[in-house]
C-alpha cells in the first residue's frame, strides 16, 4: 500500500552530498515528495529529511540504498505517529475590504502570523504538522490563494 515515508538521513556535510542523495533517488525511481537539508549543531554533519511516496518494499529499499552512500552516517525511517513533525509554509491570499478581517480571524485560529498586508493581498506564515497546514490551505482557498511555498517535513523525537 502506498503511503508517505518519512526518512531521516544523517550524513557528513561534504560538497555534493545533496546531489548524491538526489542522484540516488533519480536512479532508483524513488518519488520524492519533499526534501529538507540543513546543518544541525555540528557543522560537519548534515541532516536531511525526505518524504517519499511508496510501499513497504520502497521504504526498505530507500533505507538500504541510502545507507550504502559513502557520506551517509545513518538512515532512519521515522514513524510519523511517534515524532514531532513540523513543516513551514508561507502563503499569499487575495484580500479585499470584506475578507481582510476574516483572513485574520482564520490566521489567529491557526496561530499563524501575518507577515505583510498589501492593498489586495496578504502574506501569512504557519508552522505545523502536515494536517494543520493542509487544512489551513483549505480554509484559505475560497479567498483565492495567489502563491504558496512549503518547506517539506522536518522531524524530531523527544524520548
Amino acid at each position, binding site marked *: 500500500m502506498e503511503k508517505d515515508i518519512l526518512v531521516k538521513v544523517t550524513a557528513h556535510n561534504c560538497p555534493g552530498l545533496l546531489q548524491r542523495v538526489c542522484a540516488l533517488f533519480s536512479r532508483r525511481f524513488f518519488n520524492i515528495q519533499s526534501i529538507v537539508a540543513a546543518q544541525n549543531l555540528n557543522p560537519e554533519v548534515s541532516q536531511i529529511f525526505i518524504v517519499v511516496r511508496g510501499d513497504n518494499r520502497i521504504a526498505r529499499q530507500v533505507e538500504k540504498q541510502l*545507507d550504502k552512500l559513502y557520506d551517509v552516517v545513518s538512515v532512519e525511517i521515522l514513524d510519523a505517529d511517534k515524532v514531532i513533525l513540523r513543516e513551514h509554509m508561507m502563503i499569499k491570499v487575495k484580500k479585499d475590504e470584506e475578507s481582510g478581517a476574516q483572513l485574520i480571524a482564520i490566521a489567529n485560529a491557526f496561530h499563524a502570523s501575518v507577515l505583510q498586508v498589501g492593498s489586495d493581498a496578504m502574506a501569512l506564515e504557519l508552522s505545523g504538522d502536515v494536517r494543520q497546514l493542509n487544512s489551513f490551505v483549505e480554509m484559505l482557498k475560497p479567498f483565492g490563494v495567489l502563491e504558496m511555498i512549503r518547506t517539506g517535513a522536518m522531524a524530531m523525537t523527544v524520548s
Partner: protein
Amino acid sequence: MLLTGSEIILQCLLEQKVDTIFGYPGGAVLNIYDALYKCPEIRHVLTSHEQGASHAADGYARSTGKVGVVLATSGPGATNLVTGIATAYMDSVPVVAITGNVTSPQLGLDSFQEVDITGVTMPITKHNFLVRRVEDLAGIIREAFRIAQTGRKGPVLIDVPKDITAQSCEYTPVQPAPIEQPPMPDHGWFLKAVEMIKKSERPFIYAGGGVLAAEAAEELSAFAQKVDAPVSCSLMCQGGFDQRSERYIGMLGMHGTKTASNCIRDCDLLIAVGTRFSDRVTCDTGTFGKNCKILQIDIDPAEFNKNVEVNIRLKGDAKAILSAMCEALPDMQHAAWMGQVGAWKTEYPLAQQAMTDDGVTPKEVFETLAELTDGEAIITTEVGQHQMWAAQYFTFRHPRQMVTSGGLGTMGFGLGAALGAQLGNPDSIVINAAGDGSFHMNCNELATAARYNIPVIELVFNNGVLGMVRQWQRLFYGKRFSQTTLEKKTNYELLAEGFGVKAMTIAKREDIRPVLKAAIEAGEPVLVNCLIDKDINVLPMVPGGKSVEEPMLTI
C-alpha cells in the same frame, strides 16, 4: 618527504601494490605522465581509446581479483571512461579511475576540456572524489582503494585538478590496512537457515558473482557436496563451480538449461549465494520460485527483497557463511532428487545444429577450445549471442576464467578486457569471443595488442548480423530485421594485418581444430575470423515476461 601531487599519486599506487595501469595522456594529466616517465615500477599500457583502457582495467581486475586502475585526462578523456565505469559498477568490479581536470581556478568556467566528471559518474560509482587540496590527495587515494574493495566491490573515481598534480606537500608512506570483513549474520537467523536446509528434500543451489568476489568457490563446492544438491551458476559466476562436476546443471534464466528450469520448478528450497536475482535470471519475477522457499546469502542488504521476496536472508561474506554452514550441517543425502536431476540432464542436453553439412557451430568451436586448452583458458566476451554460447559451451572450471559484461551488457567490452586479463595472467591463454557487431565497436584495441605483443586471440563469430537482436526480431517482430543486417564490407583479415595482428579464418567445420590450435600456439595476437550462419539461435530461451520454468527449446 616533499613530493608533488603527481608523485604522490604514483607512490600511493605503489603502496597498493599496483604494477600495471591503463590510460591515455592529455593536457590535464601532463604532470602525472611526467612523473610516470620517471617511475619504472609502474607499467603503463597505452590503449587506443580511453574506453578500451577502462575495460582493460576492468578485465585485469576481474581476472586477477586485484584492483584495476585507469588514468585519463579531463573532459572527453573522462567521459570516454563512463561506459567502462558503468560496466564495472553493474558487475561490482573493483576499479579505481583517476581523471585529471582543469586547474582549480578554472573549474566551473566551461574551460577547455572541462567536464564535471564527479557529477556525471555519481550514479555509476560506489563513490567519487574531487580533490581540493594536495594535502588531501594521499588520503583520498587510500580511501578510494579501500572503498573499491570493501563490502560489495565497485568502481571509485578520483578527479584531480591539474594544479594539484603540480603542488607539493609532505608525503609519508602508509601500508594499506587489510580490508575489513563484514560481520557474520545474526546467529538466530543462521540457525534457522541451517534448519531450513536440513528439512529440505530437494535443495537447489544458485550461485552468482558474489561467490567469485568473496573467493568462495572452494566453500561452494564443499557446501554443495554436504547438502547433496544440484548447482546452477549465473553468467557472473561461470567457473565459480567446476562445470565438469556431476552436480553442475548449467545456467539458470533466459538462456539457461531446461534442467535448471525444472530444478527451480521442482525444488523445495532455493539457496541463492551472492546473487541479485537479475531479471535475466528470474524472467517473470512474479512467478519465480513460487513453489519453493528461498534462502539468500549476500553481502549487500539492499539486494534482499529487491527483485524477489525471500524467506531467510543472511547478510555477510559468502565464504565465511558457506564455511560455517558446512560445519553446522550433517552430510545430507538426496539420492532420489539428484537422480531426477541427472535424468533431466540426459534428457535435455544443450544442442545446436549446423545449418549445412560443413557449417561451423559455435558449440563445436567452444567445445574444441575447451578441449585444446583443457578448460583452462580465460574467455572474455563482448555481448550478444556469442556471449551466451561461450557461457553455454565452454567448460569453465575455475573462478575468474570468464570475463563478461553481465549487468550492463556492454558491446565493445571484450577486447579491452582481454588485454587486461592477459596482462594480469601472462601464463594463461586469453580468448576474446566477439560478434562482428561488437568487434566493430572497439576493434581499435587490436593496435594495442600488436603494440605490446599481448597474445590475445580475438575470435570473431562473424555472421554479418546483430544476431541476438535479429533473434528477437525473428521471434517477436515478424522477421522485420530492422538495422540488424550489417552488410559491412570489412575485410577482417586485412584489417587485423593492418593493425599488425596475425589473421586466420575458420570457414568450414574442418578448419575449427587446426585454426584454433594454430592461434593458441602462435604466441602473438591473432584474429580468427570465424564464419557462422546468421540464423543460428541461442537456445533455450525464455521470452520476455514469461516464466523461467518454461523455456523454448526450439524456434
